[in-house]
Each structure stands twice: as C-alpha cells, then as structure tokens.
C-alpha cells in the first residue's frame, strides 16, 4: 500500500487545501468491532482500527467484498450496534446522540418495510418522526414519490411493491427530512439499469444541493462514475482511501485490439482473447507490441476495427488488495468463518 493512497484523517477537524478548517461530517477513529460465537465463545474481529473521515459535500463510495465490514461500519455510525473501542462522530458530535440524527438520512441494504402501509402512509409516518407539520408532510411526501419515480404508486400497499420499488420508497424515506448527510447501504442493489441510473442521478443531485452522500456498494462502475472519494475495505481494514485519480494508475497498462478478417490465430505478439465469427479480440501489453501488431495486420489485409487502451479499474485494485491481504496472512479469524459474512454484511 503506497502512502499516496492512504489519505485518512483519523482525528479531529482537518485542514483541506483552499477550504480552511472544516469539520468532518462522519468520522470514525480507530474503531474496532468483534463478536463472540455462542458455542465456541471465540472472538472474531469484523473491523479493526478503522479510521475514516467523510468531508462535507462529497460523495464517498465505500467499497469492499462481501463480509468486509461495510454494513457493520454503517450500523456503528448510526448507533444500531456499539463499537468495542474507538470513537464515532457525526457532525463533530458523538454518534450515539439522538438529536444528531435529525441531520441524517439512511437507506438500509435490501430494505424491508411495513407490508400493510401504503407508500404514502409509510413516508408520512417517517416524516412524523421528525415532527414535520401535516401540510409540509403532504407536500414533501408527494414531491419525494415523484422524485423516486413512484408518483402514481403511493396508494399501493408496500407488500405489492417490487424489490426495485421498495428500494425507491426506501430512498424516499431517507430523504424525508432533507438530510445533510445521506447514508446508503447498497443503494443500487435490486435495481434495473434505469433504476440504477435514477439513483445515481439522485445522488449527484444531492451533491449539487450541497449534501454529503456516503454509500456502500459492490457495483464498482457506479463508484468510479460518481464518487469524489472512495474507501476500500478489505477484511475489516481500510486498505485504501482517496480520489479515483489518487487510487488508480492512469497510465495505459495494455491495449485491446479488435480485428476483422484475420484468417489464422498466429500473432507476432500478444494473445487472442476471443474470436466471434470473423471478429478477433487481441491483447498486447505495450505500445511497442501494438505497433508490431498493427504492422503485421497491414500486410495481412485484415481490417482494424478498434484499439482500446486498458487502464486500471477499481475492480482491478480491489482484487489486487484482497489478494495481497490474503498473501500477507492479513486474514482476520472472522474472515475464515462463514458466519461472519452474515454478521459483517
């Protein structure tokens, strides 16, 4: 792990370039969390010494494999579970203070809500919990239903909603108080491509309104697309945090060449990745190899369809971090236990 990647701010307010002294919206400082199995009474670590700071107005993507501890981190931040050690602060206040939650919106993973309430009743109920008056509630609920694409479905009971609709109404309840910090646990899961795009648009819209968004996800392409910063959690430890440009090597690592009309499979360099009818996809590792390949094709009468530079993706980085953690024997006892997957989420 290069020092360049780890730009964490474990304690207190920090000074950012051009912005002066600012208070982190969400700040975890050396947080550890374990659980003890009922039968063997063994202690398993879910998170170890996690330090993280989310800055105001940013979209922060929290990525990691299953069981890395993403959902556990979110639950700790919301006071749903308690840390073994370390401190968690929201807007500079202790995270277990109830009043600070007025400034937060939260969407859990795979949300499951009250079956017998209609969408409108459900949102109205959540708005009541913030003490919003009847007229404002009515207006706000209508607006939110429109915003998440459920404008004409508000009178249906939630048990008749599809998974995607539940995700949308869940997102609406997270925004019912117009929160300054929106925490979303896997907001894209269960959504079709259109739904995913709509959620991405809502997240970008929240940022445009000056709100902070912290979301966990497996869908790394979305993360690359919309996040200002990314935190990568591997087996309970934060392996990398920073902007996409900080984290990823932007130089070209390989080239993919699409060729039509190549008769045989022999190439002067590189390798053929796939062949579909007369379309061949080849991969070469350097610019010199690319030049050799293009010269080779020129003499063979094959048509060059496309040349695509291959850059490192978040997925490459995540896989690399997971492998290096495993190679380094970095596995927490919990990571070897299948039960941990369930707990850590």
């Amino acid at each position, binding site marked *: 792990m290069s020092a360049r990647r780890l730009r964490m701010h474990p304690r207190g307010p920090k000074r950012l370039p051009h912005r002066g002294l600012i208070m982190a919206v969400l700040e975890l400082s050396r947080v550890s969390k374990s659980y003890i199995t009922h039968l063997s009474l063994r202690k398993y670590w879910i998170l170890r010494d996690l330090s993280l700071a989310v800055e105001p107005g940013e979209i922060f993507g929290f990525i990691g494999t299953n069981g890395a501890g993403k959902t556990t981190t979110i639950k700790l931040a919301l006071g749903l579970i308690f840390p073994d050690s370390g401190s968690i602060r929201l807007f500079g206040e202790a995270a277990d203070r109830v009043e600070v*939650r007025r400034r937060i919106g939260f969407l859990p993973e795979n949300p499951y809500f009250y079956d017998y309430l209609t969408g409108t009743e459900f949102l109205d109920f959540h708005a009541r919990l913030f003490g919003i008056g009847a007229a404002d509630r009515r207006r706000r609920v209508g607006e939110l239903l429109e915003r998440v694409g459920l404008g004409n479905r508000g009178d249906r009971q939630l048990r008749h909603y599809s998974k995607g609709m539940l995700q949308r109404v869940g997102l609406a309840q997270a925004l019912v108080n117009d929160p300054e910090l929106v925490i979303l646990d896997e907001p894209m899961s269960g959504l079709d491509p259109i739904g995913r795009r709509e959620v991405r648009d809502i997240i970008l819209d929240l940022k445009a309104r000056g709100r902070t968004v912290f979301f966990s996800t497996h869908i790394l392409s979305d993360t690359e697309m919309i996040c200002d910063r990314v935190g990568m959690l591997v087996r309970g430890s934060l392996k990398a945090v920073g902007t996409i440009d900080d984290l990823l090597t932007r130089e070209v690592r390989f080239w993919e060449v699409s060729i039509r009309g190549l008769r045989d499979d022999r190439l002067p360099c590189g390798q053929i990745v796939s062949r579909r009818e007369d379309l061949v996809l080849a991969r070469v590792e350097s610019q010199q190899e690319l030049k050799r390949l293009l010269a080779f094709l020129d003499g063979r009468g094959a048509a060059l369809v496309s040349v695509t530079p291959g850059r490192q993706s978040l997925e490459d980085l995540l896989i690399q971090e997971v492998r290096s953690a495993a190679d380094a024997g970095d596995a927490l006892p919990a990571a070897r236990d299948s039960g941990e997957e369930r707990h850590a989420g």
Partner: protein
Amino acid sequence: MLARVSAIALNTFREAIRNRILYLLLIFAVAMISCAQILSLLTVGSEEKIIKDFGLASIELFGVLTSVFIGIGLVSREIERRTVYTLLAKPIHRFEFVLGKFGGLVITLFVNTAVMMAWFFVVLQVKGIFDPRLVTAVALLYFQFLLITAIAIFFSCLSSPILSGVMTLAFYVIGHLLWSLDLLRDRIASPAGKALCGVLYYLLPNLGNFDVKGEAVHGLPIPPAAVGFAALYLLLYGSAVLAGACAIFQRKELQ
C-alpha cells in the same frame, strides 16, 4: 417525545388492524361468544350464568392470544425484518420505540376488546340480560391484556418470537396460579423455602388481581377498591416491566 411515541403507536395500530391474524382471532371470538347461547340450551335454570361465563372466558382467551401473538412480534419481528434500522436511524430514543410499540397494541387491544364486548352484549340482549358488573369484568380483563402485552414486549426485547411466546404464555398460567404459591408458603417448613415462595409471590405477576369473572357471573358485588387496586397494580407492575424492556433494548445490538 409524545409526538414520536404516538406516531409509532399509530403506525403499529395501523399495521395491526390490517393484519389478517387479528381478524381471524376476532372472528373466532365472536363465534365462540355466539356459541354460549347454544351451550346454555344444554342446562336448565342456569342459562344466564353459562352465557356470561362462556362469553367472558372467550373474551379472555382471545384477548390473551392477541396480546401474546401480536405482542411478541412487536419488537423482535422489527429486528428480524430489519424495519427497526430505518426507525432508529431517525431522531428517536430506543425507549420511545418500545413505548410506541406498546402504545400501538394498547389501542389495538382496546378496539379488539370493545368489539368482543359489544357482541357479547348483543348476545346477552337477545336473552334480555344486562348486568353492569360485566362491563367492570371486561375492563379488568383489558387491564390484564395490557400487563400480558408488557410482558410479551419484555421477552420480545430479550429473545426470539417463539421463545417469547412460550415464556409469556407460561407467565400467564403462573400468574393465575400464584395463589398456590401463597398456600405453599404457609405449609412449607423451611424458612429459606418460605422466603423463596414469598419473593416469587411478589415478583411474578399476580393476574388474579384482574379476575372478577366469578363475581360478575354469580351476581356478587365487585368492590371499587378491588378495581382501584387492579388499576394501580397494572400501573406499577406494567411500568416496571416496560422499564426493564426499555433498559434491555437500550443496549441491544441490532444485528
């Protein structure tokens, strides 16, 4: 605080009244109360007593079942289905959540008991019977339902719905047999045994305080002091149980 508790209570009530289990229980209760009239035909001279006895017993049975089966799911089901996550991420205290859930069932049971009582009085009216003591008896049954609900919520904060159901039903049975513990205390020789019986007698819920069915059926007077004591007992014992439930839930890890 009150606004948040009442919002949760109203939501719980709304969920409960749309739950088919409640209607199923209510239909059975109404059917059983109606059966009292048929059963009364089998006896000579004590038709009125049979109708009253069977009617009150039906109200008690279905009221207790509603308290237990809806009560045990109030908190644990919310955790199991993870609906509690979105609620507790809002600016509400955990005790407000528990009290709101209890409040919702208080309203549900009130409506439930009122419907059963109304049908009971219709059945009695057919026979030309009216006795105000029956209203008192049903009111005390309602107090009992509330206490059982508090116990169900207590166990619901502590363990799974099945175990909570078993424990709550066990407390209901023990609560009606507590007089035997008092009797045992008088007969037991060992001082330690006597002390244990005494502690258990006062620690366990004495549901006999809410039982005036005998007086109501046989036309005996129900002293206002007994009603007052039952109300006070519900208030103190119920508050203690709910406080225990809130304390447990306060530190519960919502996995």
